[in-house]
């Protein structure tokens, strides 16, 4: 079947089967490989994108369900001039990523959180990341980055 949706503000059309997951559609049909696949039981969150403004796991949604929807992926998160958005910049400033594989999902989850709760507590941040697994950072600097992105004061790394 032919699917049409709006991805990162642009209308796109691509071929899909019934079983085509949104993650596969983004990666294979559209070449948006920033959306990653880290598990097959819907737990790691590396594939997190926004559909109609809501955070979802693109590996646990059929592409056909996104027909006509507004989809935002990590490739659509930077500022219009190509600079890093506030959240992305905070992840770099606070070393909130190491291998980078979970990072797109973390950024998408953080963006959804900050839209709902502009100034989350540490506990709210940790709870919101329930569906996003990172193996590198111990989450310490991810939590810091999200706090910083929300405008709350955090210490910088040692100099």
């Amino acid at each position: 079947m032919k699917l049409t949706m709006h991805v990162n503000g642009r209308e796109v059309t691509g071929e899909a089967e019934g079983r085509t997951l949104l993650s596969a559609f983004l990666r294979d049909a559209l070449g948006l490989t920033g959306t990653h696949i880290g598990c097959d039981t819907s737990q790691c969150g590396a594939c997190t994108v926004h559909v109609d403004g809501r955070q979802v796991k693109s590996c646990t949604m059929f592409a056909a369900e996104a027909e006509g929807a507004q989809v935002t992926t990590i490739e659509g998160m930077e500022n219009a001039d190509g600079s890093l958005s506030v959240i992305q910049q905070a992840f770099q400033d606070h070393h909130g990523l190491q291998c980078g594989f979970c990072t797109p999902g973390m950024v998408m989850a953080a963006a959804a959180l900050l839209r709902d709760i502009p100034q989350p507590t540490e506990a709210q941040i940790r709870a919101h990341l329930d569906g996003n697994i990172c193996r590198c950072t111990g989450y310490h600097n991810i939590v810091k980055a999200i706090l910083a992105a929300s405008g709350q004061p955090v210490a910088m790394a040692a100099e």
Partner: protein
Amino acid sequence: MYNFDFVKPATVEEALAALSDEDAQPLSGGQTLIPSMKQRLNAPSKLVSLLGIAALKGVKTSGDVMEIGATTTHAEVAAQATAYPALAALAGAIGDPAVRNRGTLGGSLANNDPAACYPAAVLASGATVVTSGREIAADDFFDGMFTTALDDGEIVTAVKFPIPQAAAYVKFEQPASRFPLCGVFVAKYADGVRVAVTGASEEGVFRWTEAEAALSADFSAGALTDLSLPADGMMTDLHGSAEYRAHLVKVLTGRAVSAAA
């Protein structure tokens, strides 16, 4: 996964017609169905998405009853079920934020995972499950692990929850899946207290009637002191023995009562 035809009807009638095909299955949020299809444990010839049916969505309260459409997501229930705070809180803690944006009440009930949260709320509330053809009392709906009273081709359309005087849900998470290793929903009504337990039993969600009797007489955690739940029939797995689960049921029931009271 195996391929299938995808259809997305706009009305319940169209959905039922589509589901009349052999091996057709309804698809709601897909948060359990899709992972099982990836493992090729499930091979529908056709998936009928219910998410295009506007009538199945939404939270309405009239008097003492809250009616929630089957395809209302956990996140929507968490935000909108303000008249039943314990239910809203339960919905707001299922899975993780992404799961809550896709997973639905109807999907959870039709699947009846023995460790799902919603069945505890439905059973403890004495809710009524409304389907495409009838109304089913909660006590008659759940029929053991992954089994319900639903017939082939019958779909859940809504659930009617009588709103209790006081209620709370407390769960203890399995450390890997974060499903409840045990979850207890306690609801106090004018005619008595209902206690439903998920995650613990080999038979799926169940009512702890001894606790209900004790709590109906005295709605306090202390009323449970002399009770104990036998380990027989409780699940044993990597994450906890039957004895441990039976113990947790009591601990969590006490905590739920304290939270509700």
